[in-house]
């Protein structure tokens, strides 16, 4: 398990050195979007329109933060369940998206897209939302403000702790971890 510090936008060179199980401290701009925002982005593509931001090299964080208190850029901001974005992620990866941040498994199609176009799915710790929220330096709504917590935000983060979950070689951290620890509760705890 290696540890890396990376700054967005990410390149193919960044992605190919990452292996499932590595830890990444991510800094720079990440964009937030959940189901509702993804549906609108895909609709925009279908209608031949532009996405609300240039997707090349970018990382999308699946999160719907709690409201910001006065003087704070954002409230708590932990990852949401990623499988709801399965229908959308492969298309955005094909357009140059380099990373997704969420919790839980995604689909085989997403894994394939990560391999084919060199991208990674990063797992964040669900429910560690106060820790992440307090590490966000800036936040700005850039599209679909009417979606409230689900609007697309441009965040600037510093050293956001992530685990590489699906790498560009087809490895899956959830499967690897389960295999490594299965059966050990009775024998060691």
């Amino acid at each position, binding site marked *: *398990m290696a540890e890396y510090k990376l700054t967005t936008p990410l390149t193919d060179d960044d992605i190919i050195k990452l292996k499932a*199980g590595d830890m990444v401290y991510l800094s720079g701009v990440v964009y937030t979007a959940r*189901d*509702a925002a993804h549906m609108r982005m895909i609709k925009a593509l279908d209608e031949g329109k532009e996405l609300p931001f240039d997707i090349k090299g970018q990382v999308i964080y699946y*999160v*719907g*933060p*709690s*409201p*910001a*208190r006065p003087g*704070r850029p954002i*409230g*708590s*901001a*932990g990852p*949401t*369940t990623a*499988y709801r974005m399965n229908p959308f992620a492969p298309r955005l990866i094909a357009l140059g998206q380099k990373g997704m941040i969420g*919790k*839980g*498994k995604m689909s085989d199609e997403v894994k394939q897209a990560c391999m084919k176009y060199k991208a990674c799915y990063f*797992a964040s*710790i*669900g*429910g*560690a*939302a*106060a*820790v992440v*929220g*307090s590490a966000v330096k800036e936040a700005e709504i850039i599209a679909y403000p009417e*979606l*409230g*917590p*689900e609007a697309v935000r441009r965040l600037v983060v510093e050293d956001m*702790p992530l*685990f590489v979950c699906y790498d560009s070689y087809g490895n899956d*951290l*959830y499967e*690897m*971890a*389960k*295999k*490594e*620890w*299965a*059966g*050990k*509760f*009775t024998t*060691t*705890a």
Partner: protein
Amino acid sequence: MAQVRDVGVKDVEEAIYKLALDAAYHIPEDVLEAEKKAYEREKSPVAKKVLETIFKNIEVSAQGEFPLCQDTGLAVIFLEVGQDVHFTDGYLVDAINRGVERAYKDGYLRKSTCHPLTRENYGNNLPAIVHTFVVPGDKVKIIFDAKGGGSESMSKVQMMKPADGRDGIVKTVVDWVIQAGPNPCPPVIVGVGIGGDFERAAVMAKHATLRKVGEPSPDPVLADMEREIYEKVNNSGVGPAGLGGLTTCLGVHIEMEPCHIATLPLGINIACHVNRHKEIVL
């Protein structure tokens, strides 16, 4: 004849308001204690790191600016009303909803209720989900449960065959929690409802998640099933955040009621590692 006791709904509103804010920012003591014990026992370095992050999250949240989780949940309320209580000065459920709406606004909590089909967010986290039980006496017990969507989605009711019996139930629960994997934010608390009917199984399962973590059922048969499920789930290797380890669940709580001779209802409800619930007696 027992004296009827008046309870003003304004007092209920205030109680709900305080419970909702408290639940969002402060982890229940028993949950933290169970997590600390798990940390001592944990062997996976990644799992230790995840649990340390969870502890840090609890500290940051307790300062009162960032709620434990951004998903501050639907407001689920278990209300035990003594039959000698008379609510005054308004409609009880309206008062509960006012308490919830004010807390979610003043506490900068996320509003998560929406129209099921259009997905339009109502912007006030209403309506609260209220389960009311009439009990003996003249007190009102309120349990407030802030239930997040991630763990709630990993729940189900299954109408088992009577022949499936004890072992069938154990296997169904174990397989279900393991396949849920990282989605409900492990380490989780597993609530199980056996018997009753279709909807009672679900209500029991959710109610069971609110028991003090790890306290065994007083029924030795159920306590034995709880222990077996607990061990098998923790043997899955899923681990904290699903990243591998010995701590997939902190506790398994089963409730049971009689059922129809032709049925065996089973409810499974999962609570995530923040398991936000607070209670008060008025």
